[in-house]
């Protein structure tokens, strides 16, 4: 409500109240005074309403966190699938490599049907190339899982549960898998390992 409109309304209530005093009309006087008090309390009431709305929204958001967390088992199943798919693709590639090695040995033998052997080799190479298509599929799945993990992280942060700093492995000798550049402590190179071992007398 704009100020002039509000002032006009208050003035009208005050005039009505004065008139009620003049007429000794107690009921009207009380009603007009109540209207003025209500106007004064309005911002406080609006504030309380807003606060309760925000509280309601905050409480309403809690189940959303559950939904995001609920996606985690699904994320695990997706990653298990990636492990299986990449394993299968690697075995397929190794099958073709071994088969090609056998063809090459036949190629070196005297009296070999070069044309047929080369055709088979070409076929193996193109199948090997095709077997690499797992990268596209596994890449898409891993990106999706990264999205789920980010979502869970954001939801936890939104309700004030920011995870603390990642706990560093207490024992640096504990097995932790490949070091990832920019995330883990830089790993030793083969040259570093060789130097270290030679220093230790190996």
């Amino acid at each position, binding site marked *: 409500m704009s100020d002039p409109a509000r002032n006009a309304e208050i003035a009208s209530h005050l005039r009505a109240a004065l008139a009620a005093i003049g007429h000794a009309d107690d009921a009207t006087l009380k009603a007009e005074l109540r209207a003025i008090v209500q106007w004064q309390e309005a911002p406080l009431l609006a504030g309380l309403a807003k606060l309760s709305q925000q509280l309601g929204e905050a409480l309403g958001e809690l189940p959303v966190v559950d939904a995001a967390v609920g996606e985690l088992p699904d994320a695990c199943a997706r990653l298990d699938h990636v492990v299986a798919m990449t394993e299968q693709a690697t075995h397929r590639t190794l099958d073709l*490599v071994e088969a090609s090695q056998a063809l090459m040995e036949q190629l070196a033998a005297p009296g070999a049907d070069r044309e047929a052997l080369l055709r088979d080799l070409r076929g193996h190479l193109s199948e090997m190339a095709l077997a690499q298509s797992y990268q596209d599929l596994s890449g898409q799945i891993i990106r999706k899982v990264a999205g789920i993990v980010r979502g869970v992280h954001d939801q936890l942060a939104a309700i004030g549960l920011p995870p603390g700093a990642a706990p560093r492995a207490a024992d*640096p000798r504990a097995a932790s898998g490949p070091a990832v550049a920019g995330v883990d402590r830089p790993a030793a190179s*083969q040259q570093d390992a060789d130097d270290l071992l030679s220093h230790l007398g190996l």
Partner: protein
Amino acid sequence: MRILVVDDFSTMRRIVKNLLADLGFTNTAEAEDGGAAFTMLKQGGFDFVVTDWNMPGVTGIELLRMIRADDKLKALPVLMVTAEAKREQIIEAAQAGVNGYIIKPFTAATLKEKLDKIFERLGSAA
């Protein structure tokens, strides 16, 4: 020369076996963790072990300690082929008595170089 290749990933076991075959070591066997490997080693007949470090069950470093603590197996050469590449880990493996340490990903040339070095040392020690 009979070699035991220990890794929890079947693909890596196969890659190592292929590389060993290219180097002339065609008599190989596989185990998927340190526990299975130790059982096979105890049955005898192996001359060399190539092992990963990080495996569910008995890890490579534990397998190395078990081998060094076993009267019959303690002289068996062990080559660690692993993604574990912290200084502390390399030192720990050396202290546990490893004969060579290769960091994944590795090349065929690195594998050949380390094997040659181990055999050279064993030859001069014998």
